[in-house]
C-alpha cells in the first residue's frame, strides 16, 4: 500500500512521467518547436522543484523497488539539471537541422525518467527497468538524424552492445538470485563467495561497465560519441553515465560487492586499465568528440577510485567524492558539448580540431568557455575539476590506494597533453579557409546556459563550500541506509 507521504517522496518521478506524457500529447495536437520546448523546460523545472519538496521526507522506501533517499534525490536533481542544460543548449542546434525537432524532447524526458528510476532503485527489477528505459531512449536519440549514416552506424553499434550487456545483466541477476534467493540489494550481503555469485556479480559489473565505457567494455565509446548528434553525446556522457555510476555505488555498497577484497581487486584492475587506455588512446585523436570520448573513459576510471575506496573506508567519504566529482564532470562536459553545439553548422558537427583554430580571436566568448571546460577536465585549480580531483585524492589516500593514485597522477599527466592541444589550437592565428559557417544566431537561452556553466565551473573551483554542504547529507544517507558490518 502506498501512502501519501510516499507519493510525495516519489513526486519527482511522477512529475517527470506526467511531463513526458504531456509533451507527447502536445506533439500529437500541434507541432510547434517553441511550445514543445517550453513544455519540456517546464516539466524539468517542476521536477527540480519536486526534488526539493521531496527532500524533506527522505529517506522513504516506496515499495520494495525504489528508495527515495537524499542520494536518489540528489542524483535525480543532478541529472534533471543536466538534461535541462542540454535542452536549453540544443534548441538552436535542432532548429537548423532538417529533422523535426519535437520528438527529441520526448526522448530526453523518457531517458531522464529511466535515469531517475535507476538512481532510486534498490532492487534488481527496478535496476533493469531503469537501465532499459534509459538505453532505449538513447538508441532512438543517437539515430535521431535519420539520414546521417554515421549516426545510424553509431546507433546500431550502441544497440547491439547494449543488448549484449542487458543479456549479461539479466544472466548475472539470475545467477545471484538462484544462489541467494533475493532481488533486493539490501538483502544480499553475500554470505560466501560461491562460484555462481561471483560469476553473477562480475556479469552485472561488466554490464554496468558497458554503460560507463570502462575498459575492456569501452569499444563502442569513440564511434558513438562521434556519430551521435552533439546534444545526445552530452546526455550520454552526463545523464547516462552519472546515473549508472550512482547506481553502481549504491549496488556496490548495499549489495556487498565492495566489501570483498577479491571483487575489489577486479574493480581496481578495471579502474587502472580505464585510466591508462582512455588517456593513451586520446593522445593521437584529431577529433574533439573522440578526444572527449576517450577522456570520459579515463574519467570513469578515476571515479572508480571512489568506489574502491568505499570498500576500504566506508561509503561516506567515497559517496561524497563521487557526488562532487560527478557534479563537476556534468558541468564541465555540458559546457564542452555546449560549445560544440553552438558552433556546429547545419550540415555537420564542429568536431575537428581544425574547426577550433583561432577560436580565441574569432569567438572569444565560446573559446573562453571551452578553455575553462578543458582546464576543468584536466583538473587545474580555479575550476571544479580540481576540487573533484582533490576529493579523489582524499578518498584514495584515506583508503591507502597508492597504486591507483599513482595511476591517477600518470593519467592526468598524459591527459594534459591532449587537453592542451585543444587549448593551443584555439590560440593560434585563425585560418581563413576553414571558417565554420555561422548558420544560426546565438540563442539567448544557450548563451545564458553557457555563462551559467562557466560560472559554476569556476565557482565550484573557488568556493566549493556551499555545494559541499549540500552533498554532505547525500553521502550520509547512503552510508546510513546501507551500513553493514564488513
Amino acid at each position, binding site marked *: 500500500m502506498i501512502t501519501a507521504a510516499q507519493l510525495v517522496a516519489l513526486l519527482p518521478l511522477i512529475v517527470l512521467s506526467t511531463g513526458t506524457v504531456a509533451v507527447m500529447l502536445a506533439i500529437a495536437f500541434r507541432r510547434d518547436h517553441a511550445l514543445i520546448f517550453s513544455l519540456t523546460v517546464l516539466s524539468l523545472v517542476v521536477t527540480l522543484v519536486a526534488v526539493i519538496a521531496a527532500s524533506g521526507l527522505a529517506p522513504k522506501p516506496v515499495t520494495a523497488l525504489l528508495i527515495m533517499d537524499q542520494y536518489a534525490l540528489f542524483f535525480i536533481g543532478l541529472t534533471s539539471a543536466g538534461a535541462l542544460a542540454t535542452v536549453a543548449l540544443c534548441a538552436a542546434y535542432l532548429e537548423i537541422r532538417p529533422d523535426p525537432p519535437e520528438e527529441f524532447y520526448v526522448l530526453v524526458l523518457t531517458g531522464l525518467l529511466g535515469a531517475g528510476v535507476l538512481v532510486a532503485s534498490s532492487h534488481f527489477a527496478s535496476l533493469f527497468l531503469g537501465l532499459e528505459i534509459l538505453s532505449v531512449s538513447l538508441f532512438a536519440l543517437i539515430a535521431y538524424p535519420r539520414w546521417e549514416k554515421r549516426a545510424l552506424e553509431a546507433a546500431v553499434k550502441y544497440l547491439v552492445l547494449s543488448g549484449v550487456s542487458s543479456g549479461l545483466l539479466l544472466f548475472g541477476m539470475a545467477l545471484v538470485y538462484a544462489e541467494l534467493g533475493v532481488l533486493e540489494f539490501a538483502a544480499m550481503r553475500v554470505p560466501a563467495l560461491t562460484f555462481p555469485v561471483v560469476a553473477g556479480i562480475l556479469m552485472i559489473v561488466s554490464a554496468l561497465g558497458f554503460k560507463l565505457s570502462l575498459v575492456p567494455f569501452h569499444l563502442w565509446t569513440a564511434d558513438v560519441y562521434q556519430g551521435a548528434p552533439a546534444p545526445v553525446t552530452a546526455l550520454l556522457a552526463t545523464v547516462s553515465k552519472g546515473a549508472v555510476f550512482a547506481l553502481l555505488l549504491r549496488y556496490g555498497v548495499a549489495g556487498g560487492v565492495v566489501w570483498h577484497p577479491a571483487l575489489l581487486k577486479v574493480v581496481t584492475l578495471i579502474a587502472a586499465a580505464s585510466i591508462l587506455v582512455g588517456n593513451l588512446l586520446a593522445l593521437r585523436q584529431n577529433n574533439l568528440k573522440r578526444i572527449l570520448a576517450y577522456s570520459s573513459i579515463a574519467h570513469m576510471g578515476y571515479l572508480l577510485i571512489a568506489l574502491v575506496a568505499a570498500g576500504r573506508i566506508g561509503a561516506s567519504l567515497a559517496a561524497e567524492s563521487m557526488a562532487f566529482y560527478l557534479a563537476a564532470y556534468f558541468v564541465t562536459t555540458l559546457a564542452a558539448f555546449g560549445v560544440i553545439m553552438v558552433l556546429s553548422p547545419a550540415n555537420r558537427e564542429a568536431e575537428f580540431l581544425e574547426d577550433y583554430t583561432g577560436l580565441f580571436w574569432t569567438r572569444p566568448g565560446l573559446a573562453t568557455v571551452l578553455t575553462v571546460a578543458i582546464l576543468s577536465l584536466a583538473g*587545474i585549480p580555479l575550476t571544479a575539476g580540481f576540487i573533484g580531483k582533490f576529493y579523489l585524492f582524499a578518498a584514495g589516500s584515506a583508503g591507502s590506494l597508492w597504486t591507483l593514485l599513482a595511476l591517477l597522477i600518470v593519467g*592526468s599527466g598524459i591527459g594534459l597533453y591532449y587537453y592542451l592541444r585543444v587549448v593551443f589550437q584555439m590560440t593560434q592565428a585563425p585560418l581563413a579557409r576553414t571558417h565554420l559557417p555561422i548558420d544560426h544566431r546565438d540563442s539567448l537561452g544557450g548563451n545564458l546556459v553557457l555563462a551559467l556553466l562557466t560560472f559554476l565551473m569556476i565557482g565550484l573551483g573557488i568556493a566549493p563550500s556551499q555545494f559541499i554542504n549540500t552533498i554532505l547529507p547525500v553521502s550520509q544517507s547512503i552510508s546510513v541506509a546501507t551500513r553493514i558490518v564488513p
Partner: protein
Amino acid sequence: MMLVALLAILAMGGFLAWYGERWGRNVPRWIAIAALGLDGLLLLPYLARGAAPVGSEWLLDVRGTWIPRFGIGFHLGLDGLSLLLVALTVFLGLAAVVCSWTEIRSRIGFFHFNLLWTLTGVLGVFLALDLFLFFFFWEVMIVPMYFLIALWGHERRAYAAMKFFLFTQVSGLLMLLAIIVMAVFHHAATGVYTFDYFDLLQAELSPQTAFWLMLGFFVAFTVKLPAVPFHTWLPDAHTQAPTGGSVILAAVLLKTGAYGLIRFVVPLFPEASHSFAPVAMTLGVVSILYGGKLAFAQSDIKRLIAYTSISHMGFILLGVFAWNALALQGAVMTMLAHGISASALFMLAGALQERIHTRDLGRMGRLWADVPRMAAIGLFFSVAALGMPGLGNFVGELLVLLGAFKIDTTLTTLAALGLIVAPIYSLILVQKAFQGDYQEKHTLSDYGLREVTVMGALILATVWIGVYPQSVLDISAPSLQASINRIQPQAKATP
C-alpha cells in the same frame, strides 16, 4: 588586509589590462605598471622598517576560512623571507613589463593579463601558509605562464610550452598527493582535518611516511628550481618564451621552488630531510657543474643563460640542505642576486633578438662597436653572474659555500669548482656576442632611455646587495633563524 590587497591588485589589474586594450595600445602596459607600482608602494614601509617586531618572525598574518569541510583556510603570512621574495617579484615584474614594451605587438591586453596573473600566483605562493592554498597558487602561476610561452613564444613554442606544463603539473600533482596524504594522516591521528602550515608542523609521521611525503614535495620543488635530473624543461621554456616570460621565469618562478624547499620541505620533515641531505646536496653539486658545462657548450644565447640558471640553482639546493644560518642566508641571497642578474641577461638577449632576429652566438660578434651601452651592461651582468666580489651573486655563493663546508667538505670543495666554471661560460658569452670579429653585418640601434633606466635600476640593486648585504640579511635573518630553531631539537638528537 595588506596581503590580500597585494594579490587583489594584481588580479584585478590583470582583468583591467585585458579589457584596457580597447582604450589604446599602451593602456594595458600602463595598467600593469600601475598595479605593480601600487604593490611596490604597499611593500615599501615594511622594507624600510627592515627587521620584524620583537617576539615573532611574522610581520603580518591573515586568516579566514575557505573550505571548512576539510579545514582549509585562507591563511596568508608575511615574514622576512617572503617579504624579500615578494619585493623581488614586484620589482622584476616591473622590469618584465618594461622590457616587453616593443617586443609584444599583438594581443597586448591578454599578454599583460597573463603576466599579472602569473605574478599573482607567485605572490600567493610566497604568502600562503595553508598547504592547500599554497598548492592552489602554485598551479595558478602555471596556466598563464603556459599561455605566455604558447602565444608569444618563438619558433618551437608549442613544444616548449607543453613541456613546461607537463613537468610542473605532474610534479605538482605529486606534491598535492603528499599534501593530502599528510592531512589525511593527521586527520586519522587527531580527528581534525587541517591544511594549516602551523598545525601540520606538529603532525607526527612515521619515518617511512615522512620520507615518502618529503620526496613528493622535493620532486615538485626541484622540478621548479630546477636541479639535475629534472632540469630539461628549463632550457626549452626559457629559450622559446618571450623576453617578459623569460624574465618572470628566471627571476621569480624558479625561486618558488627554492622557497618551497626552505619553507616546507625541511621544516615539515626535519628528520627525513636530514637523512636525505647528502643526496640533495649531491644533486646540487651536480647541477652546479653539469649546468655550467652545458652552458659553456651552447650556441644559443638564451639557452646558455638558461643553463647558467641551473648551475646557480645548484648553489641554492646545496645551501638549503646544509641547513645552517650561514648557508640559508647564502641561498636567499643567491635567489635575489640570481633573480636580478639572470633577468637582466635575458632582457639583453631578448633585446638582441628583437634587433638582429637571431639568438645564435655564431652570428653575433663585435657588437660592442655597434651597441656599446648594451655591451657594457652585458659585461656587467656576466661578471655579476660569474661571482665577482662586490656584487650580489658573490655574497650569496660565498655564504653557501661557507655554510656547507661545515656540513660536507668534499661536496663543498667540488661545488667551489663552480666558481671556476662560471667565469668560463660568462666570458665566452661576452666574447662571442660583443667581441671578436664580425660574423655578420647587422644594423641595430643601442639601448634607449627606457631600457637604460631599467638596466640602471637592476645594476644599482646588484651593487647594493653586493656591497651592503647586511641590509638584506637583516630582513631574512629572523625568519630563517626561527625555522632553524624550530627543528633544532631533532637536529641535536641526530648529530
